[in-house]
């Protein structure tokens, strides 16, 4: 690619002028079958089963996975999370990021090609499109043809199905934040609240627009992950590669012709790899930023190679190093165990284990201590010095609990207010607490003390630090 600096050459033939803004060329990806297509559909089913199915699962008396933003409680199967547990979301995001680093370092844009919602929904929408309008050539003919009742019917059916699926997607998404059973009942009477209307339609329109119309434009122009993943490639990353050394010079030939007698490479220039590409690139020009690594071209080229009785793998997952050095598969796979991959894997494993452990060992009780803002300290009957606190006790279990409060850290420190409180399931309550010491039993100033709150059964226990003020 690197040539000497371009010298300005005045063209003899006037070249075609283009606008600074490119009109979107509609793509008609051809359907494809094969190993990677099966993997892609496997991931479509897996991700969509989880996405559409999860909100319907019940756990005891409630929805198993529900993010109740209004009440600020997040239910994940047996776990009730408070906003204070935000660290788990952070952990999840860090795990996601590290997984992306790992997968990308090993095999390029696996996420993009197989599990990204943009790819998955485009796949589903394309499937509907194909069922209604037919495959690539039929669709191109239909679009090129004049308006007719048949065309209207086909287009109408397609959009009807798209919109139905989009609405179902929007509905499901909102079902993660509003109990989906209630939402379902409301759907029949069209009695959503204003925000439910908004979000169902917002996500429906986003699905319809992105999977139906924007498609590869999202990956090419809008998605930041698409761009920064290329920065995580190295020369040992598995990418969809065209074996130019074997393929070139390309050209059409008879199936009966003997390859060894022809002055041609293995590429028969059937252009099927271009026709199946969901982003409309020609993989034979090498790795391009548009390539989402879906391997549709690998599948289709393999079928052509089979027909020609040539060995498979003219387009295959390979690495730049393997391509340049004509490595064998075992040589290529050995490079997967390189330091970068091992380090990503180790950190990822440690994080996953750490978060799981922390979730399992979590104390389902939280306590916040706030000193009273009105009275720093006061003298009360009986020659006692009193400090007032408010304790926010958060029950993160789904049973009502009775908690007992004790305090320690100063000689003679005693609780003067009620010591036990009932807190309802997943409820949080502020309770006033008064602590007393004998007047003169502690030096003037601030003294570190500790509240100890635990349930009566002794299953969970929390210590919280605070201070006791003694006036001068």
């Amino acid at each position, binding site marked *: 690619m*690197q040539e000497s*600096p*371009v010298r*300005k050459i005045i*063209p003899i033939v006037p*070249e*075609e*002028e*283009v*606008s*600074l*803004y*490119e*009109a*979107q060329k509609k793509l008609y990806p051809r359907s494809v079958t094969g190993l990677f297509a099966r993997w892609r559909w496997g991931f479509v089913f897996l991700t969509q089963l989880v996405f559409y199915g999860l909100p319907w699962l019940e756990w005891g008396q409630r929805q198993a996975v529900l993010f109740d933003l209004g009440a600020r409680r997040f239910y994940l199967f047996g776990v009730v999370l408070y906003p204070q547990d935000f660290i788990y979301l952070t952990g999840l995001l860090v795990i996601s990021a590290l997984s992306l680093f790992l997968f990308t370092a090993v095999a390029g844009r696996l996420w993009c090609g197989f599990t990204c919602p943009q790819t998955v929904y485009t796949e589903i929408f394309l499937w509907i499109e194909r069922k209604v309008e037919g495959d690539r050539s039929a669709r191109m003919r239909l679009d090129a043809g004049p308006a007719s009742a048949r065309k209207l019917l086909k287009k109408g059916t397609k959009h009807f199905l798209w919109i139905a699926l989009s609405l179902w997607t929007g509905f499901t998404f909102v079902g993660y934040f509003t109990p989906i059973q209630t939402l379902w009942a409301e759907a029949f009477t069209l009695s959503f609240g204003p925000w439910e209307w908004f979000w169902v339609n917002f996500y429906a329109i986003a699905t319809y627009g992105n999977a139906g119309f924007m498609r590869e*434009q999202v990956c*090419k*122009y809008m998605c930041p992950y698409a761009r920064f993943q290329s920065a995580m490639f190295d020369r040992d990353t598995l990418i969809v590669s065209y074996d130019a050394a074997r393929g070139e010079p390309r050209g059409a030939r008879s199936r009966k012709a003997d390859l060894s007698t022809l002055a041609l490479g293995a590429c028969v220039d059937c252009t099927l790899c271009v026709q199946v590409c969901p982003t409309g690139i020609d993989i034979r020009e090498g790795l391009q930023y548009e390539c989402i690594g879906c391997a549709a071209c690998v599948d289709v080229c393999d079928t052509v190679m089979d027909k020609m009785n040539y060995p498979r793998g003219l387009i295959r997952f390979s690495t730049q190093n393997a391509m340049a050095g004509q490595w064998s598969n075992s040589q290529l796979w050995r490079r997967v165990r390189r330091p970068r991959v091992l380090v990503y894997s180790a950190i990822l494993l440690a994080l996953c284990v750490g978060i799981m452990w922390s979730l399992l060992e979590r104390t389902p009780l939280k306590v916040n201590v706030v000193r*009273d*803002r*009105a*009275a*720093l300290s*006061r*003298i*009360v*009957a009986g020659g006692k010095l*009193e400090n*007032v606190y*408010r304790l926010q006790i958060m029950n993160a279990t789904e049973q009502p609990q009775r908690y007992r409060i004790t305090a320690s850290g100063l000689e003679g420190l005693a609780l003067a*207010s*009620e010591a036990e409180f009932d807190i309802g399931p997943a409820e949080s309550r*502020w*309770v*006033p*607490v*008064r602590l007393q010491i004998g007047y003169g039993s502690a030096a003037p100033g601030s003294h570190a003390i500790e509240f100890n709150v635990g349930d009566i059964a002794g299953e969970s226990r929390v210590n919280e630090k605070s201070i006791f003020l003694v006036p001068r």
Partner: protein
Amino acid sequence: MSDFTGNFWSVYVTVFTLVGILACLLLLWITARKKVTPSADNTTGHVWDEDLREMNNPMPRWWMWLFVLTIIFGLGYLVAYPGLGSYKGKLGWTTHGEYTDEVEKANKELAPLYAQFTAKPAEALAGDPAAMAVGERLFMNNCAQCHGSDARGSKGFPNLADGDWLHGGAPAKLVETITQGRQGNMPPMAAAVGTPDDVKNVAHYVLSLSGSPHDSLRSQLGKAKFTACAACHGMDGKGNQALGAPNLTDDIWLHGWGEQAIVNMVNSGKVNVMPGQAGKLTEAQIHVLSAYVWGLSNKPATLATARP
């Protein structure tokens, strides 16, 4: 707009906003008309630093339409909302108006709840956990600043949980106190009592009323001088709730205990003010609050579980 003393800044902001938007439109128009001739290797022909060449990756046209939509939205926004200098916008929207609307909406939503509460007398309401949860929040937001979050006050701020009342503890009296506020007025009495020694004697007499440690000789001498105090605090020193005069016999010392504190009080007097909440809280809220405060030192009438 009061932020602007003259018209200059208003015009300045308006002109710059509109010129900025028009410049964006102009830029879009120029670039949309421009045609370029890409070279065979799909570069724009620009070369920097000897061999850096710019790829010709044109922006999608729909993206340009997004820019245009943004500009249309922006202009629409500037017509509807205040944004151009002191122009107030067609919708007449203000932050203050939005706040007022939200308060009105919340009050309307809460009205049925408060209607349930006002239907009950305070003594019964104190046994209603839902009402007391509301009462606690009202107390925390409006009363706890002085009386403390446990309502037990501190020096100068009365304890509301001890059953001792300066102005009366019946719910109706509490409503009166919260609504109108109170002003406790202890005038300087040194001159009426007599010499500094007399004042000291009175202080010991006052201490003796509650059985606190005192000098019995001084207390005997001070008893005669207490007549000056009896006008408000009563001959027996039990105070007068009609005047807000504290009971001196119950060993509760709002402004400090001991000889020195009492001497200071007699000499200098004190004006202690509880502000009225009439404009700030609604009658229904005050009703709930009075029940909450009453419940701190009384058992609710239809006794269920009293909250602390």
